[in-house]
């Protein structure tokens, strides 16, 4: 059936609202701050037979937009094999090779029946605080398989015909170090699904299933048309880009990530042929993650596009078999963030060759998962774990943002004072990193310097999972690259650096010793020679840029502009 444009526009908003309300329900109810504060979660409505994303909430984590359809597809396949899909069933799993991202993300998928017929799926994903494995919080930089990262739960029925299977709950809660937190998050996710069922029921009662289905189809078609219109407006051609991961955390060998971006009329191909094969350490990702990452990159380039699968129809994402972008079970995937950030970087760089004004230069490109842990004098263990920020890339509009969050996330950093109040540490520095921005007509944003001293008399151990220690974030459209990530730690004989640049385990720190993390600045946009000398002079006045660097990067003309 065709649908009138007014009903369509109203339904578009109403359905997006259902997903937004599901987000709001979980954020409010979740126990763990990764969901409650950093919003590392997502909800949506998915196609009954393909699992394609129909509608997704606006406030969840960007990477989930796209990856969730794989989680739903995994459930569809499972239900087809078992032949027992029923109204009131809810599936639960965290298997990253089936559902994308990493094992910390717990996925709940619920079929929605209308008048006895499967209408669509509702799903909820949230990052749990702990899901077992070798390292609390599940960031194990030296994992060589999934079992060392977390317990692995394939899709199983958490509820049958509306009855929660307490046996399954028991298994799940026995496999986490923080069962109370897990229970709270699970309840929150169930609550979000309940709300979605209620709201979708009301919507179907009001408009009729046929109209809503027609609207969903029309919205996907329109998203496809929007994407096609955008592609049509870009030049035809084929552009390549490559970048590297420093290493896999096990062996110090750089791992290439390559993309060829091809546009013909209203179609685009992203071909990652030439990317490194599956590696030993945890920078592998599963195929669903790779495809979803392409979506994140595309949505950053075209931010006004809606969040449904229609957007991706004109785009062919080709991931070579056997590469680290399609690693099979049980390859470790805990460090997936680093790999997908690099995928986004190369897509931006290739796109910049086609249409530079549509992209920003590369952001800092690593989440720098740093943990410092030890025992207090009363024997109680403590673990301080956080991700750290860096500079964003310059764009045609402006300089890059200083100290931003990663493109795959919207999470904020905890306040220094909260960390100091909770753990025996003191930040000597929490500051911008001068001379870290990539030069350009619009320079990159500055990275940051965090220097953290251990106050505990028993000392502490430090672990870092980072990247960009060997390859700096690139500029676009003639802009220069930012600076690399630099990590150092204090020992008796002075400052030392990790052999693998930005990945290290078990550094021993005595009381009074520090670690120092200097994060990358973003890449520049446009040739540095085109930068307004007045802007260079004010960067020097602010101390963003030293005199020498200013002259080296931009020539001497800025000195005349100095007020």
């Amino acid at each position, binding site marked *: 059936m065709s649908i009138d444009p007014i009903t369509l526009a109203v339904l578009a908003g109403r359905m997006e609202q259902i997903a937004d309300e599901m987000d709001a329900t979980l954020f409010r109810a979740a126990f763990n701050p990764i969901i409650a504060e950093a919003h590392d979660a997502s909800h949506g409505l998915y196609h009954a037979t393909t699992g394609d994303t129909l509608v997704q909430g606006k406030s969840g984590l960007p990477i989930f937009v796209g990856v969730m359809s794989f989680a739903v597809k995994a459930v569809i396949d499972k239900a087809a094999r078992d032949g027992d899909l029923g109204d009131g069933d809810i599936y639960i799993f965290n298997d990253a090779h089936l559902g994308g991202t990493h094992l910390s993300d717990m996925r709940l998928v619920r079929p929605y029946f209308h008048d006895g017929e499967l209408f669509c799926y509702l799903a909820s994903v949230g990052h749990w605080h702990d899901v077992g494995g070798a390292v609390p919080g599940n960031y194990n930089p030296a994992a060589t398989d999934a079992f060392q990262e977390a317990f692995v739960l394939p899709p199983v029925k958490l509820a049958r015909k509306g009855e929660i299977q307490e046996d399954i709950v028991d298994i799940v809660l026995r496999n986490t170090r923080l069962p109370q937190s897990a229970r709270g998050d699970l309840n929150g996710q169930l609550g979000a699904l309940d709300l979605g069922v209620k709201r979708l029921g009301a919507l179907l009662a009001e408009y009729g299933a046929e109209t809503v289905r027609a609207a969903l189809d029309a919205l996907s078609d329109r998203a496809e048309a929007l994407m096609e219109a955008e592609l049509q407006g870009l030049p035809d051609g084929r552009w390549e880009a490559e970048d590297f991961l420093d290493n896999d955390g096990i062996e110090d060998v750089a791992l290439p990530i390559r993309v060829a971006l091809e546009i013909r009329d209203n179609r685009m191909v992203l071909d990652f042929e030439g990317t490194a094969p599956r590696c030993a350490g945890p920078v592998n990702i599963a195929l669903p993650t790779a495809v979803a990452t392409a979506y994140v990159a595309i949505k950053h380039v075209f931010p006004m596009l809606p969040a449904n699968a229609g957007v991706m129809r004109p785009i062919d994402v080709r991931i070579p078999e056997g590469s680290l972008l399609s690693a099979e079970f049980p390859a470790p995937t805990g460090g997936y963030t680093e790999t997908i950030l690099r995928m986004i970087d190369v897509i931006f760089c290739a796109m910049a060759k086609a249409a530079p004004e549509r992209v920003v230069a590369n952001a800092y490109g690593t989440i720098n998962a740093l943990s410092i842990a030890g025992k207090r004098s009363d024997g109680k263990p403590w673990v301080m774990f956080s991700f750290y920020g860096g500079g*964003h890339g310059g764009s045609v509009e402006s300089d890059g943002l200083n*100290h931003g969050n990663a493109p795959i996330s919207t999470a904020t950093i905890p306040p220094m004072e909260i960390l100091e109040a909770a753990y025996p540490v003191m930040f000597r520095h929490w500051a911008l990193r001068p001379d870290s921005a990539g030069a350009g007509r619009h320079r990159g944003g500055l990275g940051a310097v965090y220097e953290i001293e251990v106050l505990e008399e028993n000392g502490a151990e430090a672990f870092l999972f980072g990247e960009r220690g060997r390859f700096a974030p690139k500029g676009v459209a003639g802009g220069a690259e930012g600076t690399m990530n630099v990590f150092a730690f204090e020992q008796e004989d002075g400052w030392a650096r990790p052999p693998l640049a930005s990945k290290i385990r078990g550094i021993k720190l005595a009381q009074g010793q520090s670690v120092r993390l200097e994060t990358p600045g973003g890449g520049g946009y446009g040739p540095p020679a085109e930068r307004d000398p007045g802007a260079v002079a004010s960067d020097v006045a602010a101390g963003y840029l030293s005199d020498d660097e200013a002259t080296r990067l931009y020539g001497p003309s800025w000195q005349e502009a100095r007020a």
Partner: protein
Amino acid sequence: MSRMVGVDVGGTFTDVFVLDEAAGKASVAKVPTTRPDQSGGFLDGISREVSDKSELSVVVHGTTAGTNALLERKGARIGVITTAGLRDVLEMRRRDRPRTWGLRGDFDPVVPRALRLEVPERTLADGTIRTQVDLDAVRAAGQQLIDDGCLAVAVLFANAYANPENETRAVAALREIWPNAHVSASSEILPEIREFERFSTTALNAYLQPEVSGYLTRLDGALRDAGFGGEFMIVQSNGGVMPVDEASRMPIRTALSGPAAGVIAAGYIATSAGFPDVITGDMGGTSFDVSLIAGGETVLSPQTSIDFGMVVRSPMIEITTIGAGGGSIAWVDKGGLLNIGPESAGSTPGPVAYGQGNDRPTVTDANVVLGRIDPENPIGGKLERLDVKAACHAIETHVGEKLGLDLEQAAEAILRVANSRMAGAIRLVSIERGFDPKRFAFMPFGGGGALHAGAMLDDVGLGRALVPRYPGVTSALGCVIADMRQDFVQTVNAMLEGLDTTRLARVMQDHVDRGMALLDAAQTRFEARETGFALDMAYLGQTHTVSVPLPVTVENGTVIPPTETQIAEAFDATYREAYGRLLKDGVRRVMNLRSAVTGKRPKFDLTTLAPESGTVEAAQKGSRRVHFGNQWHDTAIYTRLALPVGAVIDGPAILEQPDTTVLIEPGLRGEVDRFGNTIITRVED
């Protein structure tokens, strides 16, 4: 000397509400806001209603001076003196970005890096001073900032919430050399953990001090010169009022002054009318602001962002804004979907019908085309008439032709999509607070909201809408009834087990003493004084706290502190309500103490506003064709203020007053209650 005046200065109009309680009379005035100095419109507005200023006992002001200075970045040049190693906290924010998608945009903090100076000093999280503050360095930094032309200075030291000593010494040294009063320490403004939020609030306060205190002093002087001998007070973002000298010292507390007064008034009007659960919707030119009142109480949020990276942490009435105002532009995207906003024509150039240069259709244009707004008498009185033809043309060109709709269908489509978005905001606001929206009434205020009230009943399933008698001056009315209120905070950061309750009691007593001193100093008569205390608490390991109200009594100004057991019980009750269940063996932790001291100001009887006489027949001033659904209806037009109490008007009908149009759609009924409000409900069939 019995008249009270509320003055709300908005972006376009300055509204004045005058209450003569003895005579049982109220009057309103609306004059254009003057810029950049708002005091011209302020005094002009009062003079319209009151010639002899000595007759005034109280003047209360809801101001956007602070908001505008923040949004337009027109505060003073100020400096910051901070802990060595932490110079960039203000600029680094909490590592966020302006928009989720697109990665574009940068950020300039209100204090440029060159004016943020570091000095040797360090306090640890437990309050231990690791490095004594270097006062010579502080004085040198202060002198450098003076030489650089700074008009205010903020001292921002790490962990000053735990021990303010280094800050206090630094500020004392600075006050000796600083040429004016604008020297502040973060521990004075907000002794609460979280350095970015504390530094930002303190720096933004300093940024506003020279400007806002200058403005308020000018106003105060002008009022006094005109013979005013009463009390001059300012509305805070928390919905309470404060004396003008306090506002000059704490201008950041006025950041949401105007809208807060509106919500306060809405709560009072709705509760008086028998609807303590109400969701307000203020529709302006560019936005629709939603706020929730449950059980007559407004919801306070602990902080807000005025703009990207400009965080203010002090209790504020929670207001959620979406970009769907009268000026929001309707457009069809490349996929053929109709969208409203986020682009807006605002009030200048405004809708196409204003004829001021915009040619893209807006929500207001749709209302004009469908006959819902009288083109011959535009509200606000700024324009002579509206250009209906231009509005029709814009809607046909930009929406109708692209969607294959005729003119009326296209205009209806714009309204349905806009209404659906506003309804979405209402649903989300209530769900985020854990309420079912259906139990609430909708209360539109501002100029445009009452055109959309019926649609909210339909879209959200609300039972009724309540249009206050003077929706266009709600904020000014709120000024007259707002209580005097001071909020205090102190970070405690300790486990509940073994909590030093004596020390806690001392801080509570200090908060009460300071709050009561302000009430004592006020000339205003208070009906009652109230104190309220809450602890931000959580289980150890949880960063999200819940606000736990404490059972504390204050006898003759002396705080009787709660015991550890009482606090534990209060926490368990609150936590269970928020999360359904307690955490077995969880360790309870106390993060912050929040205290509020309130002086209840006498409320006036809202029947003062009610119409005294009149008949429905006499109030009908004619009729015109108005489009609803898919056809034109001959629709009765009434002069709203002439309708008597008890009047019942079945839709379709339009009630007009100088600054508002109330739409009663077919199937709905409007009834004038005893306060002069219009209650809109469905006609029972």
